[in-house]
């Protein structure tokens, strides 16, 4: 996984990975998963997403049909 990280953040990530005996990729993925979980629980974001996907279902279906 290639991620564009602030050098300080990259250093911290490497330090955590070393201390915990894991790869940097694992630690980064876990951090992203935590962020994703927080976003999944963001009620406004979820409501807007659900409304959007329902409103534009036909467009998304057409795009899928053309892609497959």
């Amino acid at each position, binding site marked *: *996984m*290639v*991620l*564009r990280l602030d050098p300080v953040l990259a250093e911290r990530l490497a330090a955590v990975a070393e201390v915990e005996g894991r790869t940097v990729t694992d630690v*980064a*993925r876990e951090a*992203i*998963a935590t*962020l*994703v*979980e*927080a*976003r*999944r629980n963001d009620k*406004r*974001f*979820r409501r*807007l*997403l*659900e*409304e*959007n*996907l329902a*409103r*534009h279902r*036909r*467009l*998304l279906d*057409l*795009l*899928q049909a*053309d*892609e497959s």
Partner: protein
Amino acid sequence: MIGLDLADLVVIASEVLGCDTGTALTQADIGAADEALAQAAQAGQARSPGEARLHPAEAADAAIALMGALLRHPPFPARREQIAAAAGLQFLAVNDWQAYIDVPRAAVIVIERLAAGQLTPPQAASWLAAHLFPDPSLHAGQGHPLATPPAKFPVTLITRAIRRRYRRRRHMSPFLISIGPGGGSITTMVTGPLAFTGHASEALALARRESSRLGRLRGPEHILLGLMDAGDGLAVKALKRLGVRPDAVREQVEQLTDQEADYPPGPVAPQTRRVWHAMADEAFARGDNYIGTEHFLLALFCDDDNAAAQILTGLGAGEREVRAAVAELLAESGRERSA
């Protein structure tokens, strides 16, 4: 401006793919997502500084920049166009804009051409900007860029209002309607000029006359009345084929007018703005380089709370029936031409 981040993309993808966020995350090409978001953020920095709310042209620019970046660096390559579209629409929503895509096939063409490099980002953004409306869940009168004072007449005023707003921001107006004595056209950056056919011009002139005569302006129902009276265009033929009588349409429109159709203030009802855009999209989606009465008629079905569509549906000419009748007539006229 509220931008999207990696977590947002994963949540969007999980909904589009129909899986949980954990599965979406394992499927994601994080590096590609990171690259796409970085490119989109760079493009988004070009907007006017110091304003909390995005102008529609800026919102469209930023949404198209995000979509373009996700098409070039797809985090979910198998569904890249779907995810890019969903992300663009979600970006607009979190920034209080809604895209009204009344002719989905036209949007598909725009996205596919953007992906193939056949449309430039400014062209695609111009198309999208013309389809943006403030989120109706927001209260009116909050100084939204499209909140406009009441005015008298739809077609010329909508054009002037759009031109003014875009000129102020030094953006090219995304949608121009030009109407003169000899006809007129709709011009967009994606389609170029689409000239009205003779029947369509006549329908438009009659719609203007009808709206003035009835003392009410702006509604798609006036376009319907104009269509019914405009000679023997394809729309009239299609409606005749479906058994719709002009007097029945007129009676219903006049009743509706008497009941004071409930349009919000503005130079034109939002429903009518959508009809104009849908008209151009119907022509674009069908590969036509003109706007005929059939595009007017099909565009009337662009949304459910449109009085014209409701009247036609009540008379047995719903969208499906009308589309089928128009397709039949076009096929017949094609056969006639080739015979």
